[in-house]
């Protein structure tokens, strides 16, 4: 998987290079828009990470320019701006994604995986999903563990569904807020933790192996092995 990181800040470069490499990406670096354009034209990348604040041009202009020249791979936009540009919203609707700094590395990795999967259009429309002894039925909106039907609220089912679809990978609080509740707020309080706590109370009942694991400071993982 070839990835082009377009970012001029050295701190971010060094921060991302190692975890991206460990996640299986071959990382190329470009420090400005011109280099990025020529690299992207020469090598067919599977995914791009573009910072909006480049020294020579605006990141969005770069993306639009690349799109015009026929490069269609998904783009992860990194922004240090506080407000989300409407053009970024446009790109997001076009299948790209964006993260505002500071972000969790785990979240970046998870979103990159989503982007790649979205574009490779892997069939996700299965009506059932099974992870260890946890079973989800998306048509009946029902979940069962070890054969016992779990008494979940619709909200909790959506939450569990999201965790299951990302089983084995880190899911951060802001990912859950965005995907389950459709909001990009950063609450002052531990609202998401309480939801997970409640869900765990229904799934990881006494005597069963805990499935939802908390990674402190990072997020949650649903164990898949």
């Amino acid at each position, binding site marked *: 998987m070839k990835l082009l990181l377009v970012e001029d*800040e050295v*701190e*971010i470069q*060094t*921060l*991302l290079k*190692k*975890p991206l490499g460990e996640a299986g990406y071959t990382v190329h670096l470009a420090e400005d828009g011109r280099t990025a354009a020529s690299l992207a034209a020469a090598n067919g990348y599977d995914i791009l990470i573009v910072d909006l*604040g480049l020294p020579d041009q605006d990141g969005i202009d770069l993306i639009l320019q690349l799109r015009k020249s026929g490069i269609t791979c998904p783009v992860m936009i990194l922004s*240090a*701006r*506080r*407000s*989300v540009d*409407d053009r970024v*919203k446009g790109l997001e609707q076009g299948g790209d994604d964006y993260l*505002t*700094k*500071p*972000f*969790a*590395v*785990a979240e970046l990795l998870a979103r990159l995986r989503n982007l790649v999967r979205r574009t490779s259009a892997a069939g996700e429309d299965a009506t059932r999903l099974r992870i260890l002894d946890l079973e989800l039925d998306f048509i009946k909106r029902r979940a069962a563990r070890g054969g016992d039907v779990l008494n979940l609220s619709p*909200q909790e089912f959506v939450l569990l569904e999201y965790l299951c679809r990302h089983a084995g990978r880190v899911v951060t609080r802001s990912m859950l*807020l965005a995907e389950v*509740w*459709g*909001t*990009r*707020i*950063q*609450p*002052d*309080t*531990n*609202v998401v933790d*309480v*939801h997970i*706590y*409640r869900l765990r109370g229904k799934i990881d009942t006494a005597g069963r192996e805990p499935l939802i694991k908390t*990674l*402190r*400071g*990072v997020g949650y993982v649903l164990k898949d092995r």
Partner: protein
Amino acid sequence: MSSKTVNPMMQSAAWRISLWATLAFAVGTILVFGMLHRFVANDIQRRSDAWLSGEVGVLGDVAERTPKDRLYSRVVREVAELASREVPNKQQGSGTENDAVFFLQAGADGTLKLWAGRGDGSAQLAAIRSTKVVLDSPYDLSVKGFRIPFRVAAVRMKDGTSIYLGLSEKDEIRVLRNLRSRFLALWLLIVLLGFSIVFYATRRMLGHVRRITEAASRIGQSDLSSRVPTSNRNDEVGHLGRTLNRMLDRIENSMHQLHTITDSLAHDLRSPLTAIRGQLEIALTAGVKGEQIEPIVSAMDEVDRLTEFLNTSLDVAEAKADALRISPAEVDIEDLVRVMIDLYEPCLAEKGISVQMRSSGPVKVMADAALLHRVIANLLDNEVKHLPAGCMVALGLGSSDGFARLVVEDNGPGFGEDLGHHMFEQRARGKESKGHGLGLAFVAAVVRAHGGEVSAGNRPQGGAILSLTLPLATQTKAEAPASLAVVNG
């Protein structure tokens, strides 16, 4: 919006200006005509007087020289009738019937000696005798049986008799009446024409002003890039448009500078924050054990808090300068509040706080959904942090007078006395509060940037109450296309 009962045209300044101008014009022309009328009337009078004086002199001469025999009366009457044919201002073709002129000779004892004219002359004689006469100049004489007075000139003969020549004023009056009616028709035409010209011209002129006003009112908090329409003409309206646009240039410039400053500040702080957080995260996932986890996690929490503080304080700073960046869209605030309550309910329940929502159905507002999410989250965060266990939060949503109204009440301790009126100010916080004091300032800033109002206080029965209003979507629909166009562009 309030012009439903009053015709908007009547309210227009063009209407008033043209009304006043027309009134002044009408009064002026009436005055001019009055003077003209007087002049014409005097002139006609003068001419008929001259004729009368001349004729009565001639008649006097004839009467004097004609021998007083049987032919006397015939000759004099003949001459008098000849004279009456030359009456000035006479209407053409009024027939042979001559009732416009009379000739009368009265004896020194006041008896009728000679009469020429219609009737027997006794009424005329009676009128003459009852009038005090100054002989040298013609005078007005009202005769019984005649609606219109006569103008009479007299001459006294040597034999003591007097000769009177009377001319009816009906021709003079007819001429003046004609003049008046023609003038009135012309006057009406001119006044109407003048009114429509003035009305059209001022309406056109004020139409420019109105378009400038409309454009200026569309240039709101979220849209500073458009300009009012200008014309190339070098008149006052053109100046007004250009001056407004120069002012908007300056405002947009300073707004842009503010955005640049806050953005670069945010950017300069965020990249190092990202790096710090990332390093901590990598250290954490790299398999740190036991006691070492806690300090790393709390350091990450602090970084997150610092980021949130940075964001919110920059937002509040921008909002205070009316520079909050808003991308409005139609939002169902009921749905939005329900989602947020869903999100916060477990957290509130865990603290022993119950929450309920009252609403009468969907309420659509034109707002930035992301900002509204944060507003509601701020309010609920506040409740989570400040309410003791066993309390209750009630959210009520309704709409009235074009505004959506959200009321958040609780039965907790309420706002502290020390907060007073400062609760919406930056850094305002109660003594016990652990927050950074930006929550309510942010709420107020966002609501005001959307054109709403926010108020807070303590309920008489105890507990805090906070209410905010937002303009409904239908009301702002007229302005929406302009701001949306900018968003899309």
